[in-house]
């Protein structure tokens, strides 16, 4: 009489919501180059690491303040196929992949509330301006 070998659990399957490659995995953290060179070379130099951390902190704060300042401002989104839409900026999600907007002006009408999705890894150009003083010439993405 034979016994089935015991299995601790089944292999984990794909995440239906994402493509994986967890940035918090040990391998990712160890192998992924950061944009600031100090991180990859001089971990032993605590002064440089401290400076880098302060710089990162300042950049994060500046970014968050920019997002706050954009709230309720008129924004122009430059999208694929040279489509440009205007809306009132509400908020961004934590990954800056989705934007909550109001009064979205589209070629087929005005959407009171909308969620705009920015495709992963693609840059989405936004122009922020005063509603009373819109730009005359729109920048292109060439």
């Amino acid at each position, binding site marked *: 009489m034979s016994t089935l070998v015991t299995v601790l659990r089944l292999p984990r*399957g794909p995440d239906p919501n994402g493509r994986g490659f967890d940035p918090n995995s040990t391998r990712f953290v160890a192998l992924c180059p950061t944009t600031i060179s100090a991180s990859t070379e001089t971990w032993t130099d605590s002064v440089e690491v401290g400076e880098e951390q302060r710089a990162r902190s300042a950049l994060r704060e500046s970014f968050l303040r920019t997002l706050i300042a954009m709230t309720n401002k008129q924004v122009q989104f430059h999208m694929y196929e040279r489509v440009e839409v205007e809306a009132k900026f509400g908020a961004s999600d934590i990954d800056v992949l989705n934007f909550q907007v109001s009064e979205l002006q589209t070629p087929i009408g005005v959407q009171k509330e909308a969620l705009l999705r920015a495709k992963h890894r693609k840059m989405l150009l936004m122009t922020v301006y005063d509603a009373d003083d819109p730009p005359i010439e729109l920048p292109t993405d060439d």
Partner: protein
Amino acid sequence: LDFHRSPPKVSMAMRQTPLTCSGHTRPVVDLAFSGITPYGYFLISACKDGKPMLRQGDTGDWIGTFLGHKGAVWGATLNNEATKAATAAADFTAKVWDAVTGDEVLTLAHKHIVKSVNFTQDSSCLLTGGNDKIIRIYDLNKPEAEPQEITGHTSAIKKALWCNNDTQILSAADDKTVRLWDRNSTEVVKQLSFDMSVSSMEYIPDGEVLVITYGKTIAFYNALSLDMIKTVDAPASIHSASLHPDKDFFVAGGDDFKLYKFDYGTKEELESYKGHFGPVHCVRFSPDGELYASGSEDGTLRLWQTAVGKTYGLWKCVLPGEFSCLMTNN
């Protein structure tokens, strides 16, 4: 069948419990392991659903999916360190990926379906082959440069592999030949001709062994001289075979959905396992030889233990009563 050829020392028959890796939605047509890295070893699978996946090699746990191809992915490979991946697809491109972030790094346009991709040991060059019958060598440090081309095959190339310390190339094509090329002169050094199309090819650098399958046959050749070492016939048409790193076993799978395990020395069929619900398209031993992975028409990958009953990865040796587990290594 004697289940105890590989030690367990306990006298209880253990039945193989394959681990099924789900996620693909179409047939899995190719798979490859990385080398052993500080983070373990990894497995990449090529699938007709166009979404190759990276998995942890010893558990089958999904790590990520490489998104970008617009057609079936026919070939996939990892470099030794599992930092880069390459894929070959029906969208007429080969792509190079960062295997840590999952980002696409390079797209190499071809003029027809690409079937095979292979890195050199130092990951500096990529070999591609496909339906346009041309072998190409891309310098990954100069990706905009035109690739070196090797012509000669008269039908679609199934597989192209670096060999002999990346100084030579082995290729198998639908023209029923396997050819050995010199990388610098791009000329044929030696050629093997068969009565039918070669279904798969595996190159083992340690010992310079070439494993070729065609029809029901698994054939072993010296990779440098292309002299035949031996052939073994299986009960069914075989699509893929793999030789264990210690060269004591080999496994094969094909049309009858089963995985077969043979003794390489005696050619004896040792075990066979049912499990897949479709033909087996690819099978490979892990770099440590502790398991082998199979990919099937049924859209799944399965991991099988080499020594059934041993504690490894997600498999646990559990025995009733007061007996303790006395598994030893080969």
